């Protein structure tokens, strides 16, 4: 079943491809904020996030004729954004942490370690240390509140794999909170 939003997006795409310049602004206004916010969560600064998001829209509009209506425009834009951000982070050689999957010793209360604002800022930095694909999935799920079906379409993986990725991302974050100075390894 096609949602009203999806239908509206499809009409805007048709109008843009037919040469209607106003469709450009309408598409941008509908999607610019969510794409920018996703990019921001990868780079944590406004200028880089703006550049990344602009690149995403430039790519999308330049290849809009290739957009197949199987998924929504929102999903397609997220797909471009996710790939672009993951590549950007990989290219800029950030270091990501590899943690043990042993959960038996998890007894400390994480909440108590993250009480004040400073620690929350630190947590934001810890998020940057996740492997880019895991981070992307976590952002799409938790902050963008996409369904697992949508994330599966965006990333081209199964729902089970996406859920497992969320689990391991949370596990790694928990480990990083416990041991923030843990040796960073290249992903």
């Amino acid at each position, binding site marked *: 079943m096609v949602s009203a939003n999806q239908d509206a997006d499809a009409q805007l795409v048709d109008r843009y491809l037919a040469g209607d310049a106003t469709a*450009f*602004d309408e598409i*941008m*206004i509908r999607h*610019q*904020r969510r794409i*920018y*916010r996703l990019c*921001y*969560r990868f780079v944590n600064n*406004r200028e880089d*996030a*703006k550049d990344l*998001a*602009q690149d995403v*829209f*430039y790519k999308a*509009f*330049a290849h809009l004729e290739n957009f197949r209506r199987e998924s929504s425009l929102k999903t397609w834009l997220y797909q471009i954004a996710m790939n672009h951000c993951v590549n950007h982070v990989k290219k800029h050689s950030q270091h990501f942490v590899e943690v043990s999957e042993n*959960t*038996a010793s*998890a*007894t*400390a*209360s*994480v*909440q108590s370690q*993250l009480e004040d604002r400073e620690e*929350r800022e630190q*947590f*934001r930095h810890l*998020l940057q240390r996740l492997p880019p694909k895991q981070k992307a999935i*976590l952002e799409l799920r*938790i*902050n963008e509140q996409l369904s697992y079906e949508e994330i599966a379409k965006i990333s081209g993986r199964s729902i*089970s794999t996406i*859920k*497992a990725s*969320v*689990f*391991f991302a*949370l*596990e790694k*974050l*928990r480990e990083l*909170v416990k041991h923030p100075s843990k040796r960073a390894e290249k992903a």
Partner: protein
Amino acid sequence: MFGHLKSEDFVNLIESSEAPAKWRRHIDSCHRCRATWETLSAVHVEITSVGEDIPEPDWAAFRSSVRDKLFARSVQREASMRRWTGWLMRPSAVSTLSLMLAVGIPTGAFLWHLQKDHNTLSIGLETPKPASPAELLEAGTDKTVFDDLMELSEREQEQLHRLLQSAQKGSSHLQ
């Protein structure tokens, strides 16, 4: 027998308030799974509260920048197209092309006819045509100029005879 929760189950448990009763029972009885669930839930809560204060750009300038990049791309593509068509329209290119066509078309037609004749001869489907004198000479036939004389009228034969005699006389005088 019910084993430990899987990664997928933990995620469902963290995100859903209504977890299956068997999972709840297991969490109550299994220290390891309960610890994992509690810590991951805390991390999950923390992520949801992080990143709420994202500074936003000037959206009009943001859109304008994307539009300019797209416009620059289309201009570049048009210029590239014009470069190709411009090249084709250059006088030197046009004259070369005309010369190629002037030489190429007759040569092609000639070769095509040659090929066609060769094919029909080799296949032998065409009915034989009477050969022209030139073709017969080329083919080394026995027919000579005297055979053509036989085809002259009496008056023409007389004129020719006289011409030959006068020529003979002239040559004897010279000798």
